[in-house]
């Protein structure tokens, strides 16, 4: 008994010990994690339920009266004011218009968070100021010539299943028909592609529901491939186009070799929108100047503004892009300027394109969140016209065409495809959607935002009759685009809407003859007729066109680059990034390589000696890993300024063709000893080498 008992006891004791030890260990670890959680605290105060004491009410009343605020103003302030350290719920990515940039703005605070340089060199971000062969300058060149500005129009966030995924941002440059690709991990432009067919565009950028393609519609018809023709040959030689840029999500780049375009009649194609859900596989483009007016006011002809507005109807382009992709892949595209283009004849033979009449010079075409309706805003017609995708498909299947245009494109019977027309007011331009079954249309001439009800399945979501105007809120002034929270996706959020007003006139202090634009935040949370303006934000840089509003928590931005020595162009660790101990200057003939490490508050080396005429390649690694510990590096007189974000590696090359001694310094106020973060570049004059030898 005792003999068998003993080993059992030993095992029992052993097991007890192991279990006890493990439990204690776990308890200790848990306590440790908790302790760490307690210690990691932000500098933001916690929100406490508000209860106003009588004296606080009288204080608030006094301030409101002194500042001439009414109760609505106080409520608007409470809805938008964002205390220090509190973050916004949404981020608005807005085009920066002629500034060539993108602006990121927090909503509801309407605070400008950052600009992102895309088509215009921007010195703070070190975008285009890194000497010879600057990759930014290289990519901004159009046919060999630097085009150092852009007219950014329509930003497009990348989508997965028709919803913003927060990974990439695209934007079109109307002036030069270019597209910029921005990686939202580091908010930096990674690629610019130039359309090989057209000089300028307008309908870019719009993405297909899984960002397989980025749609770039044209605008002013030209001879495709930068050709030449006089207006007399307009109908024969001028053409419109739409380009489908293939996006490689893995690489984060547009793959130009897998992209193609479609030739279109020389109407002035305008905005586009991709179908989604039931209408996935199609996209829709508006057009105006189906009159094919060629202007010539100087010769006594009607100017474009009149000639292009004569007809009562223009054409909504309905394009089957999935079929077009197959046609392109099967090799039926011709090449123009080396770029594959599906000819108009091929498009017609394959049934890729047809038209639906649309009222007079429309602007936006916007697909409803369920993909069932296409809303076209009339611009010169007080209605929005709603098309049903089901009806379109049926009409196409039943060949319900009323005729063909001069290029042979079949035109669908308007009444067969139209679902509803809603009279919203004067100058309707663009439409967005919320989660309560409402649509919102900007009214340029009325300077207002119209809220109207959707029909179909959306009718269940609101109390009003379908396809009816509900209310209008005046905005100041001349609204162009508008943007509701995720309002062009399959699942809009409602809540906030931005009115992008072209004119501000008297809204702000006079800033001389050039005035800022006015972004107004509109509260669309409450259904029915309540839709107040909450906030006016002056935009004093460029003339923004479109913007998109994404839930802030969808963005997975890097607080610092992942590893020291990171190359932001390749988004990987760069083998050439100087490491600690490698600092110094080496020479190979007249080529000089400088390896620099930057850390608060010094560059190493601090003296760099080169000879006049040397080609200097300078590699700098920021050894910083702390959020916001950004350095800059500039050499005056050599037009060099770069931004060295924490852990970033940057390389640049220049020819030291100006002899002299040049201070270089850190352009970011990085630390208390920021001014001391400097050094000298000594460019020895050619003649001086003789006197040196004599010495």
């Amino acid at each position: 008994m005792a003999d068998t008992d003993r080993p059992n006891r030993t095992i029992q004791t052993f097991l007890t010990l192991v279990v006890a030890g493990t439990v204690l260990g776990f308890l200790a670890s848990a306590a440790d994690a908790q302790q760490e959680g307690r210690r990691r605290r932000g500098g933001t105060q916690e929100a406490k339920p508000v209860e106003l004491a009588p004296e606080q009410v009288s204080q608030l009343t006094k301030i409101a009266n002194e500042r001439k605020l009414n109760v609505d103003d106080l409520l608007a302030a409470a809805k938008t004011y964002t205390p220090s350290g509190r973050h916004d719920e949404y981020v608005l990515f807005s085009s920066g218009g002629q500034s060539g940039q993108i602006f990121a703005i927090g909503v509801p605070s309407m605070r400008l968070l950052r600009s992102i340089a895309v088509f215009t060199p921007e010195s703070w971000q070190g975008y285009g100021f890194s000497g010879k062969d600057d990759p930014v300058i290289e990519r901004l060149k159009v046919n060999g010539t630097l085009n150092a500005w852009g007219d950014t129009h329509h930003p497009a966030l990348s989508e997965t299943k028709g919803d913003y995924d927060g990974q990439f941002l695209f934007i079109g440059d109307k002036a030069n028909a270019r597209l910029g690709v921005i990686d939202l991990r580091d908010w930096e432009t990674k690629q610019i592609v130039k359309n090989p067919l057209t000089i300028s565009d307008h309908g870019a950028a719009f993405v297909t529901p899984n960002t397989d393609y980025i749609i770039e519609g044209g605008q002013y018809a030209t001879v495709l491939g930068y050709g030449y023709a006089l207006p007399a040959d307009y109908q024969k030689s001028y053409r419109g186009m739409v380009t489908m840029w293939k996006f490689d999500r893995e690489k984060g780049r547009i793959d130009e070799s897998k992209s193609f375009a479609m030739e279109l009649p020389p109407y002035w194609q305008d905005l586009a929108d991709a179908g989604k859900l039931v209408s996935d596989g199609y996209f829709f483009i508006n057009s105006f100047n189906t009159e094919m007016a060629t202007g010539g006011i100087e010769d006594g002809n009607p100017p474009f503004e009149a000639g292009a507005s004569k007809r009562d109807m223009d054409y909504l382009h309905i394009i089957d892009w999935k079929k077009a992709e197959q046609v392109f892949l099967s090799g039926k595209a011709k090449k123009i300027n080396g770029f594959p283009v599906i000819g108009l004849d091929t498009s017609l033979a394959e049934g890729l394109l047809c038209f639906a009449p649309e009222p007079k010079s429309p602007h936006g075409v916007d697909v409803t969140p369920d993909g069932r309706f296409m809303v076209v805003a009339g611009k010169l017609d007080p209605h929005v016209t709603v098309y049903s995708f089901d009806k379109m498909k049926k009409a196409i299947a039943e060949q319900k065409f009323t005729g063909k245009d001069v290029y042979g494109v079949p035109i669908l019977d308007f009444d067969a495809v139209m679902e509803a027309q809603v009279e919203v007011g004067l100058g309707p331009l663009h439409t967005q959607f919320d989660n309560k079954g409402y649509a919102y249309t900007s009214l340029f001439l009325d300077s207002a935002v119209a809220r109207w009800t959707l029909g179909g399945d959306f009718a269940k979501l609101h109390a009003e009759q379908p396809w009816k105007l509900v209310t209008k809120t005046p905005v100041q002034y001349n609204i162009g685009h508008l943007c509701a929270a995720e309002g062009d996706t399959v699942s809009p959020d409602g809540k906030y809407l931005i009115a992008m007003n072209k004119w501000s006139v008297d809204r702000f202090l006079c800033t001389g003859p050039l005035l800022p634009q006015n972004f107004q935040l509109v509260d669309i949370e409450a259904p029915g007729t309540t839709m107040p303006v909450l906030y006016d934000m002056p935009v004093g840089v460029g003339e923004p066109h479109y913007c998109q509003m994404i839930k802030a928590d969808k963005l997975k931005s890097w607080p610092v680059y992942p590893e020291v020595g990171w190359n932001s162009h390749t988004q990987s660790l760069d083998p050439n990034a100087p490491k600690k101990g490698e600092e110094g200057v080496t020479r190979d003939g007249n080529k000089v390589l400088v390896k620099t490490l930057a850390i608060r508050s010094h560059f190493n080396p601090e003296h760099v000696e080169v000879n006049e005429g040397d080609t200097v390649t300078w590699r700098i690694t920021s050894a910083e890993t702390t959020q916001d510990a950004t350095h800059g590096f500039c050499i005056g007189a050599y037009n060099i300024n770069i931004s060295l974000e924490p852990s970033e590696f940057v390389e640049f090359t220049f020819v030291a063709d100006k002899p002299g001694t040049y201070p270089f310094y850190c352009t970011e106020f990085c630390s208390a000893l920021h001014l001391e973060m400097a050094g000298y570049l000594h460019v020895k004059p050619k003649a001086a080498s003789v006197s040196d030898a004599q010495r």
Partner: protein
Amino acid sequence: MARFLEDLVGPRVPAEELRNHRLRYATPTFILMLARVLLLVSVFLPYWHMELEAPQYPNGLFLTAYVNHLTGDVREIDGLNHYIGMRPLGEAAAFERAAGVWMIIAMFLLVEGAAFVHSKWAVLLAVPAILFPVMFIADLYFWMRTFGLNLNPDAPLSAAIKPFVPTVIGEGGIGQFKTYAEFGNGYWLAVGCAALTIVGFVFHRRAYKPLADRLRGGAAIERRS
């Protein structure tokens, strides 16, 4: 020789005695076994934390010392320390960190061994584990003092910040930084190990001293007869 060894490791407990007084002999063994497990677990837990607070670091900077490594914002703290001429933290206690785990394993085995030595010499085996928490603080203080007092006189802020002894435990301050240092749970496990070891020896003595006396008495009688 055998006699000497027997004196050294103490008497073995006769089977009958063990059956009759199982609790008496099991208690010290159990406590010592538990104590050594605590010490082993402590390897995986922090021994010491320091938080540095300054206006421009709203989330603070953290330093966490384990017996064998240092984690946290070491890079940033080193970067800041270079302004006052303090050597990089990685150069401190290099031997201790390299040997830390082996020392713990050795102490683990020694305490385990102590449970099987039934003489007064057993306590010698446990001395390192008992003194370990004190040695840890002494060593930490030594390095903090050495680093704080030997600042590079050519550092950027030498004129502003004179050599000092950083606070090892509790609240301290340097420049715009406030520092808060405290022991981690690993350290408390080591303290627990030391305390349990001491308690274990109370029971150890209570169990084996009388047994040894009794057996020695018995042996003396045997020899006498």
